[in-house]
């Protein structure tokens, strides 16, 4: 408890970060990388063929993209960081130090991205008239900068799952070029291109300001684009999954299906196959220029794509299990070595923000509550998502005590409890009280121990 961490009621820390992250990925990958690449490609083709209608289509597509990318994409990107700053300050505080340089260079990349995108957008007419080639080059350089920023982010994200040599040598190069770096970069870029293809296809299918002939040509182009990039992305995902240590990879079914559906793994396969088929079908329909079929399938395909993105990000974040930074820090932002220290010297005695009598709201058991929030609050809520009371339903007090002592052994993706044995009892007693099992026990009249079974 180095920080007075705010615990978001209802959704909880993890889900909130995830929601912001998924929106950002959909836009940054799908629009900033994907749709803009397609716009530049269309403009490039229009220039080579002297096709003014095609160039007009590209220009019409750009305006909404610029608005979405600058208003929602950029803000949610910074927003992930904003969210993490208050929901996991210890984690981000350390990550920023490990990755100061990539982060700093990322700032330049972001700025450059905007500095290239703005003239590409604002000077479209003026440059097309005189320096059309330069304008296309500006477009391609935007795609290059966007790729560079994906490059930087992939290093940081990959580190959080497979830090590899960094754990021993603490060198930035080991941390950045970790085993999942290249496949993750490839899958993000290719996935972005494929998603961009779907969004562009939706625009082309629904737009009323586009001639029938042009629509047919662009449909064919986009259909092929989605098929090729989608297949390559799937390949990259497969390679990526192969690079994840088995310890983590084995949680991927639970990561997506959760306790509620964990016994029905077929649902996961069914969902993924359906999504892949739907996307392939809409791409094929576009390639064959079957507009009606594509029109029917495009909305489900986009929804399923968002589902695939959420699934991937959820699994990637979840499977690293008890760690935020494997080998250094647990998911609850307690460094591994510090956890050992706290087990001997006490958690609350070393907490910066623990007050036995907090002003204002006073929970029934301040010590137990503080221990619970610091140890478990990053994933569990009281009364919201992953409610701890549901998790402890039916348990006796001694069994809660054992579970608290054995979290990591029992459930391999939960961190160990940090604190002394006495503190673990304090937390267990608090949780037992919280679970409501005591009250339900009191409701049952005590059973007489005499006179049963004596003939």
């Amino acid at each position, binding site marked *: 408890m180095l920080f007075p961490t705010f615990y978001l009621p209802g959704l909880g820390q993890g889900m909130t970060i995830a929601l912001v992250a998924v929106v950002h990925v959909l836009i940054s990958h799908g629009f900033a990388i994907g749709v803009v690449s397609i716009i530049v490609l269309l403009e490039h083709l229009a220039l080579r063929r002297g096709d003014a209608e095609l160039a007009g289509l590209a220009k019409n597509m750009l305006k909404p993209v610029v608005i979405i990318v600058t208003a929602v994409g950029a803000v949610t990107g910074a927003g992930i960081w904003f*969210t993490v700053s208050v929901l996991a300050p210890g984690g981000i505080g350390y990550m920023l130090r490990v990755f100061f340089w990539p982060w700093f260079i990322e700032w330049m990349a972001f700025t450059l991205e905007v500095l290239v995108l703005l003239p590409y957008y604002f000077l479209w007419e003026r440059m097309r008239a005189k320096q059309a080639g330069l304008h296309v080059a500006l477009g391609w350089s935007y795609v290059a900068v966007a790729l560079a920023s994906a490059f930087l982010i992939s290093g940081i994200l990959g580190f959080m799952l497979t830090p590899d040599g960094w754990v021993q040598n603490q060198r930035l190069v080991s941390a950045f070029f970790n085993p999942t770096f290249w496949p993750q970069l490839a899958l993000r870029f290719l996935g972005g291109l494929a998603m961009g293809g779907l969004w562009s296809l939706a625009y082309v299918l629904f737009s009323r300001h586009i001639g029938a002939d042009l629509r047919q040509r662009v449909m064919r182009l986009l259909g092929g684009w989605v098929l090729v990039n989608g297949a390559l992305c799937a390949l990259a995902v497969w390679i990526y999954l192969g690079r994840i240590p088995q310890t983590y990879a084995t949680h991927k079914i639970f990561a997506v299906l959760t306790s509620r559906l964990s016994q029905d*793994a077929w649902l996961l396969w069914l969902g993924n196959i359906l999504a892949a088929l739907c996307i392939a079908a809409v791409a094929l329909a576009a390639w064959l220029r079957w507009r009606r079929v594509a029109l029917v399938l495009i909305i489900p395909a986009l929804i399923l794509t968002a589902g695939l993105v959420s699934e991937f990000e959820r699994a990637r974040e979840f499977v690293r299990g008890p760690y935020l930074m494997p080998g250094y820090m647990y998911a609850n932002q307690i460094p591994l070595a510090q956890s050992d220290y706290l087990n001997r010297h006490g958690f609350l005695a070393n907490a910066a923000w623990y007050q036995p009598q907090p002003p204002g709201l006073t929970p029934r058991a301040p010590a137990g509550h503080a221990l619970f929030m610091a140890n478990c609050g990053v994933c569990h809520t009281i009364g919201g998502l992953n409610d701890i009371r549901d998790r402890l339903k039916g348990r006796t007090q*001694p069994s809660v005590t054992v579970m608290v002592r054995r979290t990591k052994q029992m459930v391999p993706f939960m961190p160990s409890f940090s604190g002394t044995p006495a503190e673990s009892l304090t937390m267990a007693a608090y949780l037992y009280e919280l679970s409501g099992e005591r009250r339900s026990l009191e409701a049952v009249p005590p059973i007489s121990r005499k006179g049963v079974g004596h003939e």
Partner: protein
Amino acid sequence: MNNLHDLLLAKPFSDQVMELLLFGSFALHLLFVLLMLGTAMIAVFFFVHSWLTGFSYELRWDKRVLSIHLALKSLAVVLGVAPLLIIQVLWSVPFLTAASIMAPYWLALLGLMIFAFLSLDILGHKMDVHPVRHLIFGVLGLAALVAVPAVFTAVLSLMENPDKWSLVAGKGFAAEPALLFHWLMRYLHILGAAALFGGAFHYFFSTRGAQERHYHLSHWMVVATLFQVVVGVLLLVSVMGRLTPAVITAVTVGVFAAMLLLGLAFYRHPEVDKRRMASALVLLPLILVSMLMARQYLQHQAVAPMQAALEARAQEARRRLAPLQATALRGFQAHLATVYDNGETIYANACAFCHGQDGGGQGSEAATLIVPPEKLNAVRAQRQYLYQVVLKGVPGSGMPYFSVFDRGKLDSLLDYMNASFGSEALPQPPSRQGDLAAAKMVFAKTCAVCHGEQGQVSVFGGGLRPAPPDLTRYGLTPQRAYAVITQGYDGTVMQPFNALPEATRWGLVGLLASLRVKP
């Protein structure tokens, strides 16, 4: 404050360089923030103005202002990345603490910004066709946008007052009137600066050919400057105790430059237009830099000593933690080597601490439980029944639910248990002959109350915690069954029936074996 984290010690540069970087990157960010915010104010203000005058003139200018806003806001957002990064490294604990205390507002920034940006983008779209609709978007968007610096200034004001943290964390800003006043002035000063910078930017650079707007903007600048003077004086009052010669010098330079700029706005002469623009280009950054210098000096004084003290503690923490690092790393490697994808590993880690590695119910935690863990090596049950027990747990006992493992893992666990303990074999009839007739009577009269007449749990039994097992699907080895009948099951309503004749008890064991439905 006992601070154990050693995260404060990894720094890319010395503090001086970091502060310089913070200053430079923040100045760049703030410049675009002020221009953007000022532009938004001007856009909405003049949209209303145009509308009231019947859109008669200069709508093209109004539209251009909004596309300038789109560009400025994009830059303002991305340029914010560097100062946020640097401040979170340079003054990590003060900054992240202040942000955490203000967390709900801090998180609201996201929604505010997205809403504001989208609304203002909508404002520019066909503004002359649907004026009412666009007025609503403009006003709401501007309101959201104007709220954004309120949060940032609150976090920074709080960061610079570490002595007020715990009070504000408990009771909110209202508990600290002095801090509230300082924040309010600071916030208003930012709004005033935005109005002034936005006004000056458009006055000098975007109103060529829009004389009417040009004229209006000179008034706008005068009002903004006067506002800044009043708020600035009050802001200085709020930090009176902290003023140093450096702060006073920086503020004086800033005020002087602002007065010069104001003079330029009134000195109108077409022939010296170019020179006026060049002077404005020098003066505007000068105002910004000098005022930010004053701010940075104040911030340094407030935060640097605390950060230094924290870092000294972190050094000590690093020494204390050093001997534990090796153990922690070994634990991590052991975790990496333990893959929960097979029954053997799952049993050894998630089950054995209660049920014992040999299934004898004597794991290291067994003695701490009121209801002793079942001796798994004596269980003879249907697989589906065991699966349900493992999946859902036994309420009222220590047995938790294990839906944290997917079906494949639980199947593997059950396979392992069957192979190791024969848990899915059929219960054998006892080797000792018992009194079956007496056993049937006892069962019907006593056992059936909970276990049900046919061994399927009775309604009463189902209400117990833990409830008895379904004897048609769950059995035990004869020795274990005899032991449970004789000694009872601790922590449950299963009594020791040692008063029954031995032959009756063995008869019950035989009866149980016959109750159990085949596989």
